[in-house]
């Protein structure tokens, strides 16, 4: 239970080092899984095999060695490798939060880091791509342990800026991916829905598995504002004066409809859609990844 608390964004915010954040999130998540119907999932080892040269020393089960005086390594149930891409939306809107501990970007990074940790732990190659109006950084997927360090180091340096051109950026990404991959996109998708979907369809047509982590700020979902506000779009700098009370119902209906529409469209084209907001625990995202991973495996 004590480890599970790290699934909460408010708790994880107290840990400044991203590697530790990822580690805690994953450990918390796995600890929770033991007691869940997902016990014996693909992340669990299924048997021991004798150590052979070249195996990672970290895989040696020292408890078995202590008992038998022989080297055994843990053998995982699924040995199939999936190439994963963590695709981060870098746009300025991702740096927004109203009253949460983590803004959308921090939440997405935390989640991405945890996923990277999990993938590397399963020896899946994982890469990182960031974009706003175009692809800004990319890190080729690798399954080595060092990849995790590189990936986290890059993630921790990211700053949200600029506007989003989702269609262009995902178009670029589609062109970049040569092998069938698992593309995990972290974005608020506050762009034109049609363009977003057409870009995603294109990616899906390329044979890739796509998981959309739709990260919104809690305020963007529940619209907790009371009174009159002069609202400004951080990307376009457009302004709108509203009486929040009168808009709440309309807005929440709109955002709900938007999320449902995205989910519907994604379901049609075999894309996994994970709606998130910054007040939610991280396990929802991790579980979604594992479900996809199993379907692929």
């Amino acid at each position, binding site marked *: 239970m004590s480890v599970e608390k790290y699934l909460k964004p408010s708790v994880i915010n107290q840990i400044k080092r991203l590697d530790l954040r990822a580690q805690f999130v994953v450990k918390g998540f796995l600890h929770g899984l033991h007691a869940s119907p997902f016990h014996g999932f693909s992340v669990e080892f299924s048997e021991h095999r004798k150590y052979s040269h070249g195996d990672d020393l970290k895989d040696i089960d020292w408890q078995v060695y202590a008992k038998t005086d022989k080297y055994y390594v843990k053998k995982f149930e699924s040995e199939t490798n999936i190439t994963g891409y963590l695709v981060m939306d870098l746009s300025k*809107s991702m740096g*927004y939060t*109203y009253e949460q501990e983590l803004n959308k970007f921090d939440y997405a990074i935390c989640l991405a880091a945890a996923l990277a940790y999990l993938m590397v732990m399963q020896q899946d190659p994982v890469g990182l791509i960031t974009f706003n109006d175009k692809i800004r950084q990319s890190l080729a997927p690798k399954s080595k342990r060092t990849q995790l360090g590189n990936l986290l180091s890059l993630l921790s340096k990211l700053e949200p800026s600029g506007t989003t051109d989702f269609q262009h950026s995902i178009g670029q990404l589609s062109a970049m991916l040569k092998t069938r991959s698992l593309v995990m996109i972290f974005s*608020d998708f*506050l762009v034109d829905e049609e363009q977003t979907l057409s870009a995603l369809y294109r990616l899906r047509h390329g044979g890739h598995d796509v998981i959309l982590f739709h990260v*919104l*700020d809690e*305020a*963007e979902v529940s619209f907790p*504002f*009371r*009174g*009159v*506000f*002069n*609202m*400004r*779009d*951080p*990307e376009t700098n*457009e302004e*709108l*004066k*509203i*009486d929040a*009370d*009168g*808009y709440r119902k*309309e*807005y929440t209906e*709109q*955002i709900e409809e*938007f999320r449902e529409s995205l989910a519907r469209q994604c379901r049609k084209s075999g894309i996994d859609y994970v709606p998130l907001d910054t007040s939610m625990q991280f396990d929802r995202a991790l579980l979604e990844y594992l479900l996809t991973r199993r379907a692929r495996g």
Partner: protein
Amino acid sequence: MTWANLGILGLGGILLTVPIILHFLMRPKPKDIVFPAMRFLQQRSQSTSSRMRMRHVLLLLMRCLLIGLLALALAGPSVASGDFANWLILGGIGTSGILVGAILLLAFFRKNKNWILIGILGALLVGHLAWGGWAATKILTSETAQLLGDDQAPVAALIVVDTSPRMDYKQENKSRLEAAKEAGDWLISQFPGESQVCVLPTNNDRPFFSVDVAAAKRRLETLEVDFSGATIPATLLDGLEMLGKAQQERKEIYLITDLTRESWADENPRALIKQLEKDPSISLFVFDVGVEFATNFGLTQVNLSDAEISQNGTLAISAEIQRQGGAAQRTVKMSIEKPEPPRPVVRDNKSLFPETVFDGQDITKDIRENSSVPLKFTFSQPLPRGIYHGKIEIEGQDALAIDDQRYFTIRVGGVKRTLVVHPENVNPRLMEALLAPRAKVEAGTSKYENETMLQEKFVDSQALNEYDAIFLLDPEPMGDEGWRKLENYVQAGGGLGVFLGHNAADGPLADSSFQTQSAQRILTGSLEQPWFTEESDLFLSPHEYSHPIFDLIRDKETDVPWNRYPVFTHWGIEPDENSEELPTQTLLRFGNREPAVIERNIGAGRVIVMTTPVTEYGYVEDRQSWNTLTSGSMIPAYYLLRGAIPFLVQRDVASLNIRVGQSASFENDPRDYPEIYQVFSPEAKKPPSILNADKKLLYRFTDYPGHYRLKGVVNEQVLLRGFSANLDQATTDLTRIELDRLDQFLGAERYQLARQKNEIQRQQGKTRRGQEFYPLLLMMMMVVMAVEYLMSNRFYKS
């Protein structure tokens, strides 16, 4: 439409601007925030902001409406016409009902039904429907609608002000009449312009509408306490007759009274209630200025042992002091004025009366709560001949001072001469003893000098005029000459008492000499036959005690044992009571309704005829006794004769002490008395009036209690006469009328009773102004408040 507090309406108008200012000028400054998901706001921005504006305007409207309704309710609007008021109420209920119904529908068709709210709204709607139905019924059955109309339309108002002496009762240093004047003045200022106002005091004045409102106020201001004794019902009847002729459609009556029982006494309620029923549109208000628990000292009527005494005579004066309220001690003073020629005189437009008195007497008495104590004064100083005025007076303060004095007048004169005439077979000893008791004759204090004569001698007697009164006891038949002589004697001013008995009989019938025209003129009618009864069941049976012969009986009527003194035989006479020349009245009857004592006026004198004798002293030889009136202690006969003697001898002495409102009548032989008098009223400010007297002196205008002094000159000598007038004891009875009794006069639901100005204002408003809308406006406010609450809750749901 009128407004109770018009100022509030202006204040309400100013307050109405508050929500508007708040809405338009004091809008909150928007907070600047970053919000990435703005495109979702922008998509519906146009429609949402217009809807929001609409909601704000609606809320603003509701809040303005709320303040408006509050101001309206506090301003106290009302309309004149009952019908118009009912239409307005119906309109208000309708509007409010539609609002409630609309919200009920909204609440009912909402996804999340709030059944409590629906229940409340449903109940409200049912209430509205019921109220609306009531208002509609009132409109359909309205009878007075056509009679009200515009509130500012002039009214015809009758203000009846009780000016009885009881209104002189002072409380908080203000008499009831002053309080009534204040109320009347206030009422008059409430009337719309062009109104016709009649101020009508209860003093028998003719009712009339004042020229204008100011004149009505002036008339009201001049009202004074009046002693004429007119009652409110009688005054109101007079006023109603005049009010009926007024042109104005709206008519109102205000009775300003202390609601004492006496103001309504001796009146038949039917006459008034019938008159009131004729025009049910007349609004009737009773303004009570009386005192619930009054306290008072008062003196009862004065009883004098004799109104005329001899120069050496003794006067006994008795009365009672009465107390209404808690026990107290009071001193009562008796005084008799000393004549002070040339007073009464007029100096500086004011009458001056004698101020010095003979040695008075004081009596101090403790009076228990709500009781009375008898008082008795005696006065025995020798006085010269003349008229003397005196009074008894309670000293110290009293709320109702008017009954603290009682006035009396006595005449001190020479000895009167009387003649008792009797046949030989009749013993005159009783009459002799009553007229001139031996002891008083010897002491020189007897009022009468009596002579007794046999009837046979009397017939030849010539000098009858030297006698003041003649008493004919059980006369024998006598010729017409005798009867004519007696008539002449009475005509000249003499007093004659005839006591018929067995001597008038001729066998079973009356002797024919008692049936002649001359005899009938004296005996008041034809003597028929004696009426016999063998049973002891016929008695004197008096019903009315107002005549002076009952002076001694009047106050002890229940103590006189009439039925212990049976009458067996009496003469039957049919008195001619319709004769204009010879006014006749039966003063006392037997139990069988046959006349017992009859009075007849002939010229300046008077005759008293008694149809049974007063000379049957118990046992009578040879025949059956006619009655037992003069046997035993003979109380009835004693009192009766003691009353009849002065009535016949002194004649006009009864007028020396009269009640206010009665006429005083005295003989006035021009040879001895003046033909012109100055009459000085007890009111010193009132100038003396001139009174012409012929053979009779008659003064009718006894408006005030007190001494009335008559001054004239005869044979170059100033001659003073006079009399006293007192208030009737009941006049100052402060007992309040029961509301049930009041209802009998005015009709239970016909009038509205008020004690305070605001009550009458409210009631007057209710009647004159038709209807007020305070409850309706409050109800509408509640509905608007509820709507505003629901709307703001719904619009700003978190």
